């Protein structure tokens, strides 16, 4: 990645180190991110773009930018409709899985990524997710678990933690009435299709997240089976959390309920 420093103005920083101004494409930003549309539209502190950074890095490392199609759902994921230097389709709420699955059937040479929220994937689109998994469709589904319906203002999602307050559980989620949180990768592991991949990553562990994302893509590249990656993410806007609370919620509260790791590897089989 070349980093052209096209302008520079030097100043003494308070700590005694020199601070210069550089004008650069910003090499911290993956090339697969479309610079023109940055800063992006996600809120400050949102986990979505961290997931999308890992995806970009994985696409770059696997050198599949030229044949990856990115599909996003309705939900905050839609804000990524022009996020990438990737052909992208923003679909309907819950319908990203079938759009990408349909695309993949028509053009098996493409790499199809379906990106969605927990509401889109586990609630309104759950028949699609489940049946694509059952059919072992050769697509990669990445699902952002932020424990709420974020874009609509923070209602209970299938992933909302017990006692967690949301706009539709103002007194805290009561599992006796609304059930326990949905465990996606565990379910995929139970379906256990040969050649399928299922894992749960977290934005709190970026390196691992890149690794899981790559595996979820490699599995499709190898034409082995369905690939599913859930990612624990942040939504400070709807959680109404400070940065510290945001991390605590992801790293402690969520991780207690949602185990991070790989649940089904292509080698495993049922």
């Amino acid at each position, binding site marked *: 990645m070349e980093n052209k420093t096209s302008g520079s103005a030097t100043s003494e920083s308070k700590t005694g180190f020199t601070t210069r101004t550089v004008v650069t494409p910003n090499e911290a930003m993956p090339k697969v991110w479309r610079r023109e549309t940055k800063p992006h*539209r996600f809120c400050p502190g949102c986990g979505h773009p961290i997931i999308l950074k890992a995806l970009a890095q994985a696409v770059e490392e696997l050198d599949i930018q030229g044949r990856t199609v990115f599909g996003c759902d309705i939900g905050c994921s839609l804000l990524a409709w022009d996020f990438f230097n990737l052909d992208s389709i923003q679909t309907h709420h819950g319908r990203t899985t079938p759009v990408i699955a349909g695309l993949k059937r028509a053009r098996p040479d493409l790499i199809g990524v379906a990106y969605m929220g927990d509401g889109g994937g586990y609630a309104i689109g759950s028949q699609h997710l489940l049946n694509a998994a059952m059919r072992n469709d050769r697509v990669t589904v990445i699902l952002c678990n932020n424990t709420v319906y974020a874009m609509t203002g923070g209602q209970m999602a299938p992933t909302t933690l017990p006692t967690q307050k949301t706009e539709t559980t103002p007194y805290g989620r009561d599992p006796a009435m609304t059930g326990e949180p949905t465990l996606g990768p565990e379910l995929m592991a139970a379906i256990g299709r040969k050649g399928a991949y299922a894992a749960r990553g977290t934005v709190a562990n970026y390196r691992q997240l890149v690794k899981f994302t790559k595996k979820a893509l490699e599995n499709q590249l190898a034409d082995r089976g369905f690939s599913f990656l859930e990612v624990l993410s942040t939504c400070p806007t709807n959680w109404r959390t400070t940065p510290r609370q945001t991390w605590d919620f992801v790293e402690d509260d969520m991780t207690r309920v949602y185990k991070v790791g790989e649940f089904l590897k292509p080698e495993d089989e049922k």
Partner: protein
Amino acid sequence: MHTKIAVAGEGGQGVQSIGEILAEAANRSGLETTYMPNFGVEQRGGVSIAFVQISDRPIGSPKFKRADVLVVLSPRSVERTRGYVTPGTTVIYDSSSIEAPKIDDMTIGIQSWETLAPEGFADMAGNRPGKGIKGEEVRRDSNVRTVGIPAARIAKEELQPRVFNILILGAILAITKVVTVEAAREAMEHMFREKFAQRPELRDDNFAALERGLSLVETEQAGAGR
């Protein structure tokens, strides 16, 4: 009497509170009132606009395209709300963060988007080769009054940064007289009942800011006008 007020600023500036207090006060004064925030798909970011109408007869659409009073509190919100300016509009702006808005014949009535969207989205939208709404015309005569209030500076220096919006509210009341100061005070008492009860100093701070806003206009108005 029918006054259309748009208040625009950044997410954290409290523009919706200004709109809500104005509307609540008008409602308490027995006037017909509508208040509407703008909203889009995103949860945060971008310019926030509050639309308030106060009238002595029933109100039609809760949104409008030309404002009688336009309050702009950040440079971006000036850009975003140019379209609401029409001959007769009073533009109130925070002169400590914005230069006096250039309102000329060419900017009045220009089509712009109403949105609270973060930049990327909204800009992109604005960039589309929109053909504008039919029947829309750029009006060439201009009869616009602008009033600059150094609200941010005064709030920071003399009061508290967080009462910035109430100071602006005071100025709006002084300039437009859409509702009485008493009505505004009552509305605030009602709306912030719990907060005021918990932290009585909040009441004092806010009411002080209101007064300061009122008085500011009397002293600075002439200078800021165009």
